[in-house]
């Protein structure tokens, strides 16, 4: 998953990251094909050079040796809303076939079964970045027909909706899950399986998806990480396997 995410990044891009997979993907990209990526955090940090993995997006390690620090409002305004973020990463508790994400509640808003942490900056990332990458563990309880709550809009209820609401970003570009890579049909805006990870079957992906998942006619096995990418991840970037363990089925 991390290697696939790194492949989505191009040199020189300005990327908004949160903790975990997005940071590892950006670091991996920086060490391989994209040395000039600039990492931006909602906390205001621009051009971070993380030398340890952190729990918080405002970690002190991200501050020392970064390029610039803005206040949070200017980060959302001058950098995100103004249009300077090329790539953003989001996740959520639930996702539906139009890439809408839920990080607010499960059940009823007034009396929820589960109260989730909330949007934070996830809404703004989903609405304002040029290219949105969604990271999700692939489970049936997460890939649902309809999310309980739209925290971060994907394609809403289908084609034309984002335009109708006046959402600036293009919408979700790709979902990188623990089972495969999924994209969105250009016309119907519906999610489909583009590739399944090595060791995963198409049936397994369908079983773990809560709607009748469309499969690309050219569906294929995901390109595995290169030996060099694996070496970098395991030995340099996440040697204790803090995030590698959480997000991989077989180390993607």
């Amino acid at each position, binding site marked *: 998953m991390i290697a696939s995410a790194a492949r989505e990044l191009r040199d020189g891009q300005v990327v908004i990251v949160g903790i975990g997979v997005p940071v590892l993907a950006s670091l991996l990209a920086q060490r391989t094909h994209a040395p000039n990526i600039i990492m931006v955090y909602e906390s205001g940090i621009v051009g971070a050079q993380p030398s340890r993995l952190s729990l918080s997006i405002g970690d002190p390690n991200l501050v020392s040796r970064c390029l610039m620090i803005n206040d949070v409002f200017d980060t*959302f305004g001058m950098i995100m809303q103004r249009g300077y973020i090329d790539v953003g990463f989001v996740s959520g508790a639930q996702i539906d076939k139009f890439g809408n994400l839920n990080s607010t509640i499960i059940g009823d808003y007034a009396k929820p079964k589960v109260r989730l942490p909330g949007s934070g900056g996830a809404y703004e990332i989903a609405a304002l970045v040029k290219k949105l990458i969604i990271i999700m563990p692939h489970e049936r309880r997460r890939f649902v027909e309809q999310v309980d709550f739209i925290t971060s809009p994907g394609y809403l209820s289908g084609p034309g909706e984002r335009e109708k609401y006046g959402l600036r970003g293009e919408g979700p570009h790709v979902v990188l899950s623990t089972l495969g890579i999924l994209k969105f049909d250009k016309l119907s805006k519906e999610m489909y399986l583009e590739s399944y990870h090595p060791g995963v079957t198409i049936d397994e992906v369908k079983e773990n998806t809560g709607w009748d998942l469309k499969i690309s006619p050219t569906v294929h096995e995901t390109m595995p990480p290169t030996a060099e990418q694996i070496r970098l991840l395991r030995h340099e970037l996440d040697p204790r396997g803090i995030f590698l363990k959480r997000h991989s089925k077989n180390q993607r």
Partner: protein
Amino acid sequence: MTNEAKLMSMEEAVRKFVTDGAVIYLGGWAHLYPYSIVFELIRQKKRDLTLVKHSPELMADMLIGAGCVRKLLFGWVGNAGIGSCHAFRRAVEKGIPRSVEIEEYTHFSLGARLKAGAMGIPFLPTKSLIGSDLVKYNQVAMIMTCPFTRENVCVVPAINPDVGLIHVQKADAQGNAQVWGVIGDTKDGAFASNKLVLSAEQIVPTEEIRRDPNRTVVPSFKVSAVVEQPWGAHPSYAQGYYDRDNDFYVDYDKWTREPEGFERFLTEWIYSGTDNSDYLKKLGADRMQRLKPRPFMSSSVNFGLYG
């Protein structure tokens, strides 16, 4: 107000400037969270507070679990990288220890309320909230058509909290306060708040502030109370002073999963002591030493003396 009148103990500052029922802004953003002020709010058993903070993390969880909160305006409440805030969830899901009214935003939209409040302007527009279900449940934010471009914009009204509670690295006795590292929304929140209580790692002579004025985020004329409080941000961090205590966040998650565990946390860490020195004694000198960073100084710049 004279210098002497502003410099006071935490107990006095909270007693004088935070009343039951107040609307409170909490400063910091991952960095410089005013935890020692929050502990004092809990010690003094403040009630019916409205908290305004887009990312209050454990501060909101502690205040809610301790029964201090009537209403919460927020964008995200969680234990970063670890999971849920359990007391927050208990209050919203089950009304334990009491139900809390929530007014939910995103970071940008709540930030816009404070920015408008700080600027003294009735509202601010952003592209936040549009297309999100949050708009259905937030009774305050409105989507409207921009009078110039005809595009959809989200407008939110200004908010001016009764009192802002912030922690900074340096301040002088008058309250000229300096921050470096993550600034968050501290300046907006401080200017939006009608009164301001600030705690500082160090109280320094005004001359030290005057040597480096770009770092000043709050001027003295905004400040009502100044408290000297080293380690005042623990378990969050103060850039250059001490690290984020991730072990504490992990332990807090374990301790507070059930109401009984949460009560024990309050008793052992907050009620058992009379002030922050007791808290720090419990933390222990070894742990505090391990949290200290190695030095990494900025280069100094020449402001020049003219005339």
